[in-house]
């Protein structure tokens, strides 16, 4: 039986290095074919926001193509594909009320909205959970 893990994320995109470390952990687990449950809470709901857009960088003197600015929602889609390729899965839930507060509801299709009930079901049904809290005070 495949190993299953839950990750709880809290930090918004472009705010904390925890986001990239969290996604690196998810990448490792996805390549192992694990079944992964992600609960994006508070600012982390914006990670899956589909309207994130790349931009040029005037300081780097890069146009939009050269800069190839990272978009977390693209990373999430890529992680989802990797999990499927390795016969695992990623179920990614964005906290609905957190999205409501922030006016965010346009998520990439490989994620969905949900509630604290999803979080508890994830924790209860998986082998282990890592909570990645926020440093923002």
């Amino acid at each position, binding site marked *: 039986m495949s190993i299953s893990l839950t990750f709880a994320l809290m930090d918004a995109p472009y705010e904390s290095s925890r986001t*990239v470390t969290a*996604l690196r952990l998810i990448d490792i687990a996805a390549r192992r074919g694990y079944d992964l449950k992600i609960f994006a809470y508070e600012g982390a709901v914006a990670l899956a926001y589909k309207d994130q857009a790349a931009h040029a960088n005037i300081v780097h003197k890069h146009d939009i193509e050269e800069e190839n600015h*990272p978009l977390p929602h693209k990373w999430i889609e890529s992680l989802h594909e990797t999990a499927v390729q390795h016969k695992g899965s990623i179920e990614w839930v964005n906290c609905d009320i957190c999205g409501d507060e922030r006016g965010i509801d346009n998520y990439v299709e490989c994620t969905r909205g949900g509630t604290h009930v999803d979080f508890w079901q994830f924790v209860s049904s998986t082998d282990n959970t890592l909570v990645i809290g926020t440093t923002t005070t």
Partner: protein
Amino acid sequence: MKVLSIISTPWRATLEEQDDTIIWLMHAIADVGAEVDVILYGDAAGYGAKGLDARGLTFGQTSQSNPPDINRDLINFLKRGRKVFICEKSLSHLGIHKDSVLPGLELVSKDKLVQLFDRYDKVWHW
């Protein structure tokens, strides 16, 4: 108006942003005429070490093609004629030897920090 920017929160989302947003902002305002210098303080003294290498980040099939290069961005800031100071005490606290520091950065001892601040009209702590 002369401004000194204290940077003390390094590597905050630099992989997502592909640079340090404060160093980026100092470059950008220097471009439009700001007389702004920078001091690396606390953990940010780590930016002064040579050989920072953020290459190799990959998520699924997506690899980062343009990773942050903080050393480059600091050297380019110096090339604008701006100054980058670095707190000597912060360096020694992190075990970074002076010979590992990027050329052109100016070391400032902790007891000279206030005198440095006094040379500027504004001091910003990011």
